């Protein structure tokens, strides 16, 4: 087990940031999803041992997050969300310095820094002062310093922040390569669902400090009930009301299309029966595969409804 966290709670003053979050991660790549302020960064910082949880505990790569923080940080890499660098250094010195901080000898660190900078696409700009870098380059240098000591697991906090579409695609490809070809486990924190869907096999959805969904992305999509796209002729309000009574969710789409999320156990027959009972014609009925966005919205909506 790469990450095994149990019932983690974190409080800053009177505010509870994480509330009983549990995470089990076998390896590969996991997306940490949630709206802004959900507690994603706090969870990452707790995993790194920056923040001591109020309750709960667990292990990352076999290291206890409360007592073995140094051993843990030797094995993981962290790419922070905000701009950060060490002032007065060019890229190769900065990454080499980061390598030495993890315990590499100066000569090895410098050699490794050159390799990693080429890998992240900064090879040609490696002698430039980091302070003169563009946003995209700063994201890459943060990735480089996180990778330089060859970690087993890497935490990426919003790696595509501030990137243009081309830069974003390149960064995501890089992250996917790290995860799929280089054997490094990835935890990707993002509020951008397509980023997570592009890179990750697993997802953990956090909302208001609570875990609201977790598992393989494909399974999450599959287990959230059947979904249909439907166009009707007749009283749409009645149709929607009847479906709501059956605890199915209806959303209006483009061109008078309805997106209907069925409750578990209900299927197209239910739709047809409701339509027949109320004299409504169904003109179009297509089963839909849920997107991660729909899973996410459903999970978050569910929590909001409960709270």
């Amino acid at each position, binding site marked *: 087990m790469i990450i095994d966290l149990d019932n983690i709670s974190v409080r*800053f*003053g009177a505010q509870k940031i994480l509330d009983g979050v549990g995470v089990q991660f076998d390896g590969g790549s996991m997306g940490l999803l949630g709206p802004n302020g959900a507690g994603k960064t706090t969870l990452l*910082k707790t995993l*790194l041992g*920056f*923040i001591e949880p109020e309750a709960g505990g667990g292990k990352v790569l076999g290291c206890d997050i409360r007592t073995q923080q*140094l*051993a843990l*940080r*030797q094995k*993981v*890499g*962290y790419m*922070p969300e*905000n*701009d*950060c*660098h*060490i*002032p*007065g*250094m060019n890229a190769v010195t900065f990454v080499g*310095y*980061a390598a*030495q*901080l*993890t*315990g*590499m*000898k100066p000569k*090895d660190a410098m050699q*490794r820094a050159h*390799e*990693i900078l*080429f*890998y992240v696409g900064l090879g040609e700009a490696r002698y430039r002062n980091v*302070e003169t870098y563009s946003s995209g380059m700063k994201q890459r240098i943060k990735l480089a*310093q*996180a*990778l330089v*000591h*060859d970690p087993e697991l890497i935490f990426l906090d919003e790696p595509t922040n501030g990137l243009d579409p081309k830069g974003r695609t390149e960064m995501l490809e890089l992250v996917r*390569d*790290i995860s799929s*070809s*280089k*054997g490094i486990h990835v935890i990707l924190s993002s509020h951008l669902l397509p980023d997570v869907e592009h890179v990750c096999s697993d997802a953990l959805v956090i909302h208001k400090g609570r875990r609201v969904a977790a598992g393989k992305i494909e399974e999450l999509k599959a287990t959230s009930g059947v979904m249909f796209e439907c166009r009707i002729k007749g009283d749409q309000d009645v149709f929607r009301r009847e479906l709501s009574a059956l605890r199915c969710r209806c959303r209006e789409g483009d061109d008078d299309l309805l997106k209907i999320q069925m409750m578990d156990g209900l299927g197209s027959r239910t739709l047809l029966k409701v339509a027949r009972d109320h004299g409504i014609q169904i003109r179009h009925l297509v089963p839909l595969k849920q997107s991660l966005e729909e899973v996410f919205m459903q999970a978050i909506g569910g929590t909001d409804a409960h709270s």
Partner: protein
Amino acid sequence: MPIHDLSYRHWSGEWTSHPYRWWVITRQGIGLLARKKSFLFLMILAALPFVVRSVILYFSIILGSSLPPQFRPDAQFFANFLSQQRFFTIIISIFAGAGLIANDLRANALQIYLSKPITRRDYLIGKLGVMVFFLGLVTLVPGVLLFLLAVIFEGNMTFLEQNYWVLGSVTAYSLAIIFSNALIILAFSSLTRSSRFAGINFAAVFFFTEILYGILSGIFRTTRVAWISLGTNIRLMGDFLFGMTPREQSPTWLSALIILGLIVVSTWTIHRRVQAVEVVK
């Protein structure tokens, strides 16, 4: 498909042991400062009094008792040298120390440092090491070298036998200057994201307390209030360590206590401020 992928290779080399990680920070800090020409110029300027005193030392021993007493190599000679160097230690502290933590705070570098296998203590010792190195170069190192030169120029063991304790005084006084300056400037540096602001605050503490002491001693017509001045407290400790009559009436133990207190408070401040996570409550 490539025959051999050179883009990313796993690392299987040797790691250095953890107890020396602070040295990486110290070495890097020294290297960054040593590349600044203005700082090098300052260090050369701070070395000039040592050169002048070495020459004086040489002639004082050659000419013997024909020179005025202040040029003779005794405890007073070394105390005066280190007191003179205190001016340079203030300037070097501002130049080297003001940005050591403030710049890291400005660039959000602490989360990079602390996401590596180093502790907050390693970070603090590493930054302190930079200050100890440069302040040591203008106090302890030339002080000890002057002592050794005196022994060498004398050509026999008489000077060493009579003044061996001065070496201890030079070391203790230098360390008092180094650690008080280093920790106070690092504390100011940890309180702000602006190195300029940290430097101004540090200088203000030295000069404002000196001015305040001047005003109060003028009003009350006594030097008993000398403990108010940080610089005078350090000088009083020097007078005590070199066995000289204190120039102020303020008790030496009070000066020592104030300096110790400032060192403790500064260390506590730095430790509180150096965090990977800034929590806004």
